[in-house]
């Protein structure tokens, strides 16, 4: 828990130390860094489990309108999950980001992605009558991420940082032929740095 506190604190504090010159309050292609907490669960269930499976994410975004209330995000998240296997999630999502108050905003997002789900233990395959160990590469699967979130813009004279929290539900297709779609969730705490 101590490490978790340090990580979250780092994400919120580091942006304050950036002193960029001639940067507008919102600019395209900010860096988004997040700490992610993964679980193999239906949405809004078993939230405690998310905090056992930590990950890290990095991404960016581009605005689709002048007020930046519609943006397109791209990102990659790596997470550790001891029971189900680690994962590497690539995604792009369309985000509606309405503002409220002077600096607050909400987020509703959805998109498409690709999850490389690694095996939690080594695998075995029968090849020419003998058992061979396989890598933990696992399986790549297309997925549909959906999310909600909220954040706060901290505007400085020539820069802006936006700490946020997101909850993502990811419907992963083709896990195996018996279970065509499996539920994954991510709680994301991070900051966008313009």
């Amino acid at each position: 828990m101590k490490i978790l506190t340090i990580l979250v604190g780092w994400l919120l504090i580091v942006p304050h130390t950036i002193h960029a010159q001639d940067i507008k309050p919102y600019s395209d292609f900010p860096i988004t860094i997040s700490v992610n907490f993964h679980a193999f669960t239906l949405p809004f269930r078993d939230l405690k489990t998310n905090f056992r499976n930590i990950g890290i994410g990095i991404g960016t975004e581009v605005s689709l309108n002048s007020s930046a209330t519609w943006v397109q995000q791209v990102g990659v998240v790596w997470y550790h999950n001891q029971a189900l296997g680690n994962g590497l999630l690539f995604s792009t999502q369309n985000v509606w980001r309405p503002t409220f108050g002077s600096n607050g905003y909400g987020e509703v997002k959805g998109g498409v992605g690709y999850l490389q789900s690694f095996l939690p233990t080594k695998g075995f395959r029968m090849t020419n009558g003998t058992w061979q160990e396989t890598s933990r590469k696992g399986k790549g699967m297309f997925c549909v991420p959906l999310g909600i979130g909220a954040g706060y813009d901290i505007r400085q004279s020539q820069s802006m940082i936006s700490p946020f929290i997101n909850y993502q539900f990811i419907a992963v297709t083709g896990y195996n032929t018996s279970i065509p779609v499996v539920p994954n969730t991510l709680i994301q705490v991070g900051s966008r740095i313009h």
Partner: protein
Amino acid sequence: MKSLLLLFLLSANCALGQSLPITNCKEDSSVVINTKYSKAAAVNAALLKLTQMGVPGVSMAVYSKEGWWSTSHGYAKLEGQVPMQGCHLQYLQSISKTYMAVAILKLAEQGKIDLDQLMTVYLPKAISQHITQAEKISVRMLLNHTSGIPEYNLQPAYVSYLLQHPKHIFQPEDYLRYIHQKPLDFPPGSKYSYRNTNYLLLTMIADFIIGDHTKLIRESIFQPLQLTHTFYRGDADYLNYPTLVNTYWDRHSKGILENASLLQRNNVASLVGDDGIVTSPIEAVKFLKGLVAGQLLSSSSLDKMKTWVKRKEKPVYGLGLSYVTFAGNIGYGHSGGGIGAGCQLYYFPEKDVCVFVAINLGTVTDSPIHKKAESVIEEFYAALLN
């Protein structure tokens, strides 16, 4: 930043150990094996095919007019290549339902339960309130899967929790919460649909009638048949046996197997009545052989077990017994399948053959290995029966 990096490096290499220790064992000497069994070569050839196509290990026993015979192929544990032996314990999975049905029929013989009485007569409100229209469902409907009660292990919330928490032990009522007041799949008694929930409820009924259904199973089955290598919950070392096979599953249906022994063991340790028994192949056969020979129940009770409900005009299930045809031969008994194991226990009356076969590969998730194995299983029964 250093601590962040260290955390990820550590976590990347930290996987949940699934394999369990297993030892070689001494073969069962309680029966005399007929070393000149006439079907041995053909049966061995079929089972060898199974292991060559990617089933880790297979073990079987048969009792026929030629006496006892048993054989094993492949591995009880792939890591370290521990050979499968006939004395290794196998997961019975849903074959446990036949044991539970026998226990309920034993209670009926003792006049402690009426099969046509409603389940609400025997269950407290706290339990029956989970089930929609519980007041319309009889004990017999639970036994022959005509209750319409939904399946707990098809609930996405249950399946995802099970996989995310492989060490978690569920309590019986936890399963009922997953189907709390869900609509019935069909009106009670109107059709057949196999549901594990039915047998979970039967154990709860037995518990409320006599206090402990595990004691009932031990006293009405294990003890009279002298089954000393058959185990169910309530045992002090339950599922921590050094001769219990390791089990494997094909998580992504790609023909790549992972050791799932910890998940399998903890899953089975949680299951009551619909699963939970482990045994050796010979003792599995001893159970069914004893049942059909009238060592456990009266002929009237056995006839009740063999009163088949039909699906599409064909007999399919009795009371804890399923009706099957293999290689043109009619049989009855039960099959079992779980995360890391699969098995079949059947009696073929026309041939007077009783057989058990088990593999340590899971059958609940599809695998290309299963598709290839299906034809070999038919070949196995043809070798055994024809």
